[in-house]
């Protein structure tokens, strides 16, 4: 063992949080699969999921806390915007103008989005929300995750996997990977569960760092060829199989992420999450849905305008996604990857007395990739016709999900996942 004497530092404190970085929430039922089926390497023409065309990938980027939509896609010609946001409005001459759009533009920190937009790789859906909006973070996030306004039930991606994978030998066990501390509800189905970790280097037994002999002994204990000795169907057998799965997944994911990326990613967290996702895509994992999260959007106080805290967050999102597509392009995988970016709600139209904004309703959603229908879609919500000081949504988020499910993931009927039929938002040109 190495000598543990080191001063107590903030860094060490942060490491404490990382010890559990590989994680998942409670799963409703067991997903049975054997080690041999995990991470079967896919050739570019095959898919692990029946019904999914070719090998299309969906990446979800969640902006947690409620992103201020009005200061993201800015109604720069609207005097009402400047009237109700005296301290935090972005000055008209600093708003990034968009082709084919005279009235609204992007926050100046979103230049990474502007260039995607100009390359025809960004679709901005305006005024996305749902009826009877809930302003609680938990409740509204659950609504977006379950695609049900009660916020109760399995996740929409989880349900998709449950549907598509019923009866397949491995239950699409490798279908989804979420980066984060806990598995997002959106990815949790009745049977399907995503692989979840905060740092792939911790998706392993950390005891192997104790000494070389310990690591060797551990790997011998986990040797697949010798392990399956318990009666089939027993809990000991189940645990042994899951342990084998974990070993295989862990090794493949860590090998993938160790590759040097083809482009340089910035150091902040979301960019690093997307770097890892890019690496896993490049390594050809059979995974079809990845999930990344960035927090901090709950800007009740001092959110800033053209600069400041909110601007910094927006800049990270745009820069990370822009870099991600540069990487995918270099890999020649960009055409396979659709990215969808959402937040649980927007914020109130008027600023509050703390230079921030409180929980609101509708906000824009962003979709990136060469397959999107580029440009501004839907209708910007009116700033004069408000519901109790909040924007009225113009597009139901489930009509975006419906298009992603059918037009991208190849689901035959979106109501099998979403519960009802929605008019599909025309967000994709496939």
């Amino acid at each position, binding site marked *: *063992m190495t000598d543990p004497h080191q001063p107590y530092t903030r860094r060490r404190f942060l490491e404490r949080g990382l010890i*559990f970085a590989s994680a998942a*929430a409670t799963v409703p039922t067991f997903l049975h699969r054997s080690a041999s089926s995990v991470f079967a390497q896919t050739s570019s023409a095959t898919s692990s999921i029946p019904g999914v065309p070719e090998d299309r990938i969906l990446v979800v980027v969640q902006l947690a806390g409620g992103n201020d939509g009005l200061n993201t896609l800015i109604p720069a010609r609207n005097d009402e915007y400047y009237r109700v946001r005296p301290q935090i409005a972005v000055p008209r001459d600093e708003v990034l103008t968009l082709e084919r759009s005279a009235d609204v533009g992007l926050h100046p920190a979103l230049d990474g989005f502007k260039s995607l937009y100009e390359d025809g790789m960004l679709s901005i859906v305006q005024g996305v929300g749902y009826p009877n909006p809930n302003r609680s973070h938990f409740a509204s996030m659950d609504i977006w995750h379950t695609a049900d306004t009660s916020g109760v039930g399995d996740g929409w991606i989880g349900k998709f996997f449950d549907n598509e994978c019923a009866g397949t030998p491995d239950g699409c066990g490798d279908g989804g990977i979420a980066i984060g*501390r806990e598995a997002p509800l959106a990815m949790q189905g009745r049977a399907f569960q995503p692989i979840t970790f905060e740092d792939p280097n911790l998706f*392993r037994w*950390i*005891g192997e760092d104790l000494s070389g002999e310990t690591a060797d*002994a551990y790997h011998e*204990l986990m040797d697949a060829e010798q392990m399956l000795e318990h009666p089939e169907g027993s809990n000991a057998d189940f645990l042994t199989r899951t342990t084998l799965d974990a070993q295989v997944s862990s090794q493949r994911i860590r090998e993938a992420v160790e590759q040097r990326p083809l482009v340089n990613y910035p150091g902040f967290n979301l960019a690093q999450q997307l770097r890892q996702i890019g690496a896993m895509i490049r390594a050809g994992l059979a995974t079809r849905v990845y999930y990344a999260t960035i927090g901090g959007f709950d800007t009740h106080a001092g959110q800033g305008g053209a600069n400041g805290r909110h601007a910094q967050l927006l800049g990270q999102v745009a820069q990370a996604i822009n870099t991600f597509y540069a990487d995918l392009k270099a890999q020649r995988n960009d055409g396979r990857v659709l990215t969808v970016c959402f937040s649980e709600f927007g914020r109130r139209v008027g600023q509050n007395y703390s230079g921030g904004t409180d929980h609101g309703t509708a906000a824009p959603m962003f979709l990136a990739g060469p397959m999107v229908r580029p440009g501004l879609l839907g209708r910007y919500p009116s700033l004069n016709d408000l519901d109790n000081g909040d924007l009225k949504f113009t597009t139901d988020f489930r009509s975006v999900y419906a298009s992603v499910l059918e037009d991208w993931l190849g689901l035959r009927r979106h109501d099998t996942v979403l519960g009802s039929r929605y008019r599909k938002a025309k967000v994709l040109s496939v």
Partner: protein
Amino acid sequence: MPQPHAHAQGQTRTPSPERRRVRAPSPSTRPIRREDFGYDQARHLLWRAGFGGTPAQVRAVSEMGPRDAVDFLLDFESTRDTYDGPSAADFNPFIMAEPTPEQRRAYQRARREQDEDALARLRRTRQDRQRSDRRQVADVKRWWLERMIESPRPLEEKLTLFWHGHFATGYRTIENSYHMYLQNQLFRAHAAGSFESLMRGIIRDPAMLNYLNNDRNRVGAPNENLARELMELFSLGEGNYSERDIKEGARALTGYTFRNNEFVFNADRHDTGSKRILAAQGNLDGDDFVTAILHERSCSEFIAMKLYEFFVAMVPSDRRNIRYRPAVAFIESIAKTMREHDYELKPVLREMFRSRHFYEEANIAEKIKSPVELVVSSVRSLRVPVRDLDVLVEALSVMGQEPLQPPNVAGWPGGRSWINTSTLFVRQNILAYMLTGKLPSGFDPDAAVERYDATPMADDLAAGEIDGLSDPVLALPHLCRFMLGRPALPRQLDVLTAYVDTRGGRLDPPTLSGCMALITAMPEYQLG
């Protein structure tokens, strides 16, 4: 599952102990013989009816024999509660107190006059209170985890955990840490008492009344949430009541609410009309509703089933399958005991923990430990340093069992649902952390100070007349049997022996703790 006998009107509860029939024990509940109760059985009892124990405790329980050992664990009132951590006085009951009339008036005035400054001030005060309440709920979690680790009455804490999962209530919905504390104390007070008292307590419990919206349940505007779950999840199980029973039950519970930390029966809001619930009829209130539920045979069967799944084994939904017939017969038998003792829990638990069925080989070390069981039993059996309660609480939440925060009113589903590739690594890593202080990069700076002391384990080997230092080949099987509750596979022993050989062939304390880290990473360590 036994067939439900809905509306079993002929079912009467035996009024006095003298009239209880003495019946021949059915084969499955027949007690285990003294001579069949050895080391493995004692260990099994300690892990299931508690949170494990040291090798010395296993030997002591084995020497007590099954009768005395079960009595010792179950009659925990006679063990002095030596836990000396925080107590009720250390928690602030008033952080989330309702606003005083003056505060309410100030708020209404500010709204009327659209005084944005005053409104912002009030909002900030509320946010401050919520923040300190979140800090307090973290204190309550640490307190309970520490109690489970340190209490000399492990079964009391284990039953408290059972009732928390049964009458599941989540902090984030009710946002009142003191109510969660009070509910936890309710479960502890009746842990092995009577199910009837728990039911009567839960319909008066502020946390539950809030969680299931019964504070909004009033005459003319009933809210059915509590009435439904009281039958579906807390007592009868789905299919053993009708929709009408829910509607009428909700009316019986109208006016059951709370003010600050006290239950309040609001007579103005109570529906005094006639109701028919299950087999009962009349101007029924919440207590009459509970009484009607307890008259149903399916209530005893449902609770017996839940106890069985928590303490013995999961019974899959295809329970008509011949393989589960002994389990079903056993559950029916202890349900009968429950009815004969007016829902007193001790006779049921005593029968269960003494039975041959409980000690059958198929039931030993074949149950997947919940995250709480994994962490607490590791500390109690291996005496690993706790190191940092916050780290342990966080690990519990990442493993899917955040205390005071079950996923929903149905509680934790348990069993195989605890395990997936991600949680499995967390389970292995939290043990590596406790044993060695190993952090993802480097070590806990206190790791040298709080070094794991392997002496008790070495002493135990010596007590078994095994000189672990010179004879690892004898010592390792013994160690595995203690830690896994079952013999290690020959292949696993070979790996451990080779590991000891590379370190000089002696089980000195660092090598012993290395072996233990490896054993805790074995799949079988997740079973208890």
